[in-house]
């Protein structure tokens, strides 16, 4: 993976510098962390300074926020929404519930680590991180994009079987998202 990064052309560097300044966050509050977002958006912490503002539909969003625990039922919807998002997309896992199950570590109904089901870009530790932590993680994400290392979304296309197999283990049957990921990988040459 290492040598692929250094070959970035000048144009990719420039476009990375420009696209990192505008990230649209899908306001998809799946767990208890959603209440941390309003303070980060409004006057005191104001994440719009970094060009991040909430967007409503997955088609227009770049960041998918998984704010807290995910029951199997919500995980289905999250996978569908993730597949509906476009191009360079980044998943940000909020809080310890997405890292290792958190408070619900021994529950029969919640998934334990998020990156088994969808590729995750950055995690934010804390049982609901404070807005400062959220702003810090967004800055890390921006720096990562600038360095061109934020390519987790390509993982979903390249080893799709790994993710699909984990998903089907948890779901009763394969979910119908009308997306043929393998064909898309070929079409978009990822």
């Amino acid at each position, binding site marked *: 993976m290492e040598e692929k990064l250094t070959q970035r052309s000048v144009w990719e560097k420039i476009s990375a510098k420009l696209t990192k300044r505008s990230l649209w966050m899908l306001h998809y509050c799946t767990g208890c962390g959603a209440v941390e977002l309003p303070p980060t958006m409004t006057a005191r912490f104001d994440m719009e300074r970094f060009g991040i503002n909430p967007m409503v539909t997955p088609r227009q969003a770049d960041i998918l926020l998984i704010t807290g625990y995910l029951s199997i039922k919500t995980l*289905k919807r999250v996978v569908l929404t993730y597949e509906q998002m476009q191009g360079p997309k980044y998943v940000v896992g909020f809080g310890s519930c997405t890292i290792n199950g958190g408070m619900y570590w021994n529950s*029969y109904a919640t998934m334990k680590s998020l990156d088994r089901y969808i590729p995750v870009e950055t995690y934010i530790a804390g049982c609901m991180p404070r807005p400062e932590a959220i702003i810090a993680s967004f800055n890390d994400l921006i720096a990562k994009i600038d360095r061109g290392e934020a390519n987790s979304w390509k993982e979903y296309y390249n080893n799709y079987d790994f993710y699909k197999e984990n998903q089907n283990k948890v779901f009763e049957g394969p979910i119908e998202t009308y997306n043929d990921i393998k064909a898309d990988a070929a079409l978009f040459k990822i």
Partner: protein
Amino acid sequence: MEYMVEKSIIDKMQLEFSEAVFTVKKVRRIEVKLASNRLYDFAVRMQKRWNFLHLSAISCVDWIADREFELVYHFWNYDEKVLVMAKVRIPREEGESHFNTISDLWQPAKFFERDIHEMFGVYFDGSEDMERFILTDWNGPPPMRKDFITREFALNFYHYRDYDPQWLKDMVAAGEGNE
């Protein structure tokens, strides 16, 4: 003579259900222990005669030691503002835990019974639908039963990240961790 209202209600019920055990738990709380076959008549009288119009909930307690489930029916009276908890014992084994439905008296009973069926495995005869209620994609045993060990199920069904950073090891070595 603090429990005037509760005593009057108990006397009223005592006439018809002499074999039931009535106790006043605290102000506005009456507990009734019944035989399982008498519950339906009790419920009918509660609704029609003694004006307990609201079935607040049906809950289920798993007495694994006595090998029995205890169904608790919570009736509430708007006028005297008293809650009556009718408790009934039914066998716990996989095949025999049956009970008759009271959804014809109260509509919401359907959902309470369906929930108990999903979580404990008690089958309510005569109820309209006994399908799965909240737990989608779940084909394991009813999870609320005491013989279902959730921790053991979770540990081997889900994948956990092995996470033992240095600072955690020092803390455990220093004996502060609760494990």
